[in-house]
């Protein structure tokens, strides 16, 4: 385990100051935002936001996609400047904030986007910006050692500090950004959806680190969509809606219903019911996996996916679920075995991405920055990419037809956007994701593959997406749904395949309990058999489930 109890206890002196929900002047106030206001053209992204955070607390910032969270994060990080309002750190107002000035004041931000320099080494990335322009602040050998220690402690496995970052998986790159913030020993640490790219075990480890920092007196600001996380470690929460503060909650007030009410501004008496699972005996086989070995030596997988069925894929990071999904989409070749689309008793093999598209398979990528969006294109162009042929008049593209096509598929997802000719990057991350999802739904796929589509998407949007998926399945589509959030899978899936060691370790019914899924992800019978950090996370999951169900 990363956090030893003795270390926690020895630093608990300032911990007693935390957890206080007092709003008044506090000598421990380390960050004060007053009247922060920011507009992008027509969009009023932040409206007069105030926030006060004290040393030794975990202060959450929550809100729907597009509520202004990312803008607030960028303001605190000095990436952008407010039109009005002030930011004070430790009682000192920061004049014309830049990343450098904010860092000098003791603020470190771990951005949602995993910002690393791919062509550089791990140690260079961890100490990126640490040195001055001309002067080194630490000897190279000391850097290597500190980098190796820190990353091993954080990620739980050794990461070669000299390795090139582009060879590392997303989770390792995420750890690098965490380490980069920690080597500066910040007074204020801001985590923007930092657990989104991490699996359950890694996320638990990061949260344990956050608690350790809190006990040491660091003020931690946490932006998250994961309710379980929020309830587990946040002392207070600031809820944003449409760029303004909708409310501030104490730890006791952080229950889902209250949060959703504040985030949406609607009373939850009319709350949508959870997606309803229906029995799926009647569906015919849509996709067949025949002796699929994901890597040399892994146990081959033979499974069937039926029309009208939503099958969840779960597993710790890198246990084979992504490779399985990509094999289904013809994106990555498995080591052995075949994937076949079954059409009226005729089976056709999926071996290339082009076959997959022709056979009615749509693959919705998880990393929208890398695989999904054209950053300089408009919202409409981003939606239209594979759909041009569906909206032509005499062979020419009809913008009007395209717009109505987009409206039809984005409406169920409740896209929050300005004009369809605006650049896609003018949208918040979650809304960008909705455009990408709508793009593929417009293809009317018969088989839909989703690679963690709700990463960084708020609760309300998630529900809209679940409803769309359920509707698609009811219409006869077959859905493979990979998610890093277990509760998501137990909410809507008919079956859940749990991956471990590059093969299907367990197949669970859709109504399985989340902690059973978690247990099999770790290859044990019961959650209690998992070690401490992981057990904590798993308990938090089941608590949330009690809350939801």
């Amino acid at each position, binding site marked *: 385990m990363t956090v030893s109890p003795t270390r926690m206890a020895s630093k608990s002196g300032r911990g007693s100051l935390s957890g206080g929900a007092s709003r008044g002047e506090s000598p421990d106030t380390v960050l004060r935002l007053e009247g922060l206001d920011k507009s992008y053209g027509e969009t009023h992204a932040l409206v007069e936001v105030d926030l006060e955070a004290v040393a030794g607390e975990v202060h959450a910032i929550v809100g729907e996609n597009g509520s202004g969270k990312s803008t607030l994060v960028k303001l605190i990080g000095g990436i952008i400047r407010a039109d009005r309002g002030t930011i004070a750190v430790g009682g000192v107002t920061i004049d014309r904030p830049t990343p450098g000035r904010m860092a000098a004041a003791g603020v470190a931000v771990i951005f949602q986007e995993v910002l690393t320099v*791919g062509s550089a080494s791990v140690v260079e990335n961890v100490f990126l910006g640490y040195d001055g322009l001309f002067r080194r602040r630490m000897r190279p050998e000391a850097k290597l050692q500190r980098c190796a220690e820190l990353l091993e402690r954080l990620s739980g496995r050794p990461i070669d500090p000299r*390795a090139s970052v582009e*060879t590392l998986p997303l989770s390792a790159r995420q750890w690098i950004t965490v380490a980069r913030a920690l080597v500066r020993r910040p007074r204020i640490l801001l985590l923007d959806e930092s657990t989104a790219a991490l699996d359950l075990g890694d996320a638990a480890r990061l949260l344990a680190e956050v608690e350790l920092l809190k006990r040491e007196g660091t003020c931690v600001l946490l932006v998250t969509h994961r309710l379980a996380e929020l309830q587990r470690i946040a002392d207070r929460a600031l809820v944003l809606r449409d760029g303004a503060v909708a409310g501030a909650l104490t730890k006791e007030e952080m229950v889902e219903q209250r949060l959703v009410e504040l985030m949406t501004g609607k009373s939850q008496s009319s709350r949508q019911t959870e997606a309803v699972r229906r029995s799926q005996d009647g569906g015919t086989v849509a996709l067949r996996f025949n002796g699929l070995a994901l890597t040399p030596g892994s146990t081959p997988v033979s499974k069937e996916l039926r029309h009208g069925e939503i099958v969840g894929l779960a597993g710790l990071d890198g246990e084979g679920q992504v490779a399985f999904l990509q094999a289904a989409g013809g994106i990555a070749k498995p080591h052995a075995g075949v994937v076949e689309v079954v059409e009226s008793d005729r089976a056709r093999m999926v071996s290339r991405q082009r076959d997959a598209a022709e056979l009615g398979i749509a693959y919705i990528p998880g990393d929208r920055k890398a695989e999904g969006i054209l950053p300089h294109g408009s919202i409409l162009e981003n939606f239209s990419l594979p759909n041009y042929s569906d909206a032509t008049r005499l062979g020419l593209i009809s913008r009007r037809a395209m717009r109505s096509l987009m409206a039809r598929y984005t409406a169920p997802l409740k896209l929050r956007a300005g004009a369809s000719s605006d650049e896609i990057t003018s949208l918040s991350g979650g809304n960008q994701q909705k455009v990408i999802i709508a793009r593929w739904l417009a293809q009317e796929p018969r088989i839909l593959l989703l690679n963690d589509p709700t990463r960084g998407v708020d609760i309300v949007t998630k529900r809209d997406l679940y409803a769309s998926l359920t509707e698609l399945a009811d219409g006869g589509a077959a859905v493979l749904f990979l998610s890093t959030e277990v509760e998501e899978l137990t909410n809507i899936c008919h079956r859940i395949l749990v991956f471990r060691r590059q093969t299907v370790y367990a197949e669970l019914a859709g109504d399985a309990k989340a902690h059973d899924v978690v247990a099999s992800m770790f290859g*044990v019978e019961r959650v209690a058999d998992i070690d401490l950090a992981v057990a904590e996370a798993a308990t938090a999951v089941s608590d949330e489930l009690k809350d939801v169900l």
Partner: protein
Amino acid sequence: MSAATTGLPSAHIARRSAAAGRLKAAAAGQSYAAPAAVLLVVLLILIALRGPSMFTERGLTIAASVAAPLVLATMALTPVAIAGRGGIDLSIGPLMGFVNVTIVVWLIGNGVRNPVPVIAFALALALAVGFINGVLVAVVRLQPIIAALGGYLVLSGLATYVLPSASGSVPSWLSGMAGKTGSVPTAALILLGAFIVWTWVSRTALFRNIRMLGGDERAAYASTVAIRPAHIAAYCIAGLFAGLAALMLTAVIASGNASQGPTYTLTSVAALALGGVSLAGGRGGMLGAVLGALDIYCLNYVLDTFNFGVNAANVTQMFYGLVLVVALAISGATRLLLARRHLRAGEAR
């Protein structure tokens, strides 16, 4: 430790001794230059077969002197390319020409023949032009290619204005830079000096900042790297090497000639690309630039041993293009294959 944590992929990276690790890292850090190195060996073998007179004391002196301006010009391109934003400083060639004519006309033409003021003037002038370019890119935020193109046109025009047709002479110490010191080509010593200076520069925090900036400017900015000063510094380093290149050019042609500098523009860009320096930024280094420039020089030398007569210039240019494309295609394909294998190995873990 319970079963769950040990079940994570652990200890797949063997710990190595610090020295071996550093050596391996250094070698891995220079692997981008491998294609250029292989090509150089091939070309040197070809030269040994077809024009072995290069490997005499006199031949080496001429080779080092003639290659030096190109090598230095390519070195000048390197920091700006590494700093990213697609920075290809096309104005390096004309800058060499401008410095060449100004030292011949303004200084030597007015009786200033002492090495100290001449060298100081050449370096200071080129540094100043580099600084202006840097400000245009980093502060005014012109696209680097626009700043470079503007610089190319303005500097070529100015150079021709200062000295409309080739003329003038240079003091013996300057033309002597194309000769020998003892039995060693002076140009080789100058290149060695430039390379040592570069090695020092490349180990500074400043250069690391420039490289990170070129790798991902947003990541660097968000991580508090001072973007503007780093960019300007890259252009200043470029200016200094361009000044040195101009001095070597002046030594070789022993006169003022406004039209000589610009001829280095495209050849040096070709040399840079051949040397594995990414024109997209963040990757590559001076070793690649030097090897790439030597490749171009040797290629030229080999082609000269064939008698293409009136077509020589065209044929040479055509071969530059062919070799560039073929070499980069091969190295790109190799890298892709290696990356795939690496990915597979990663998945297998």
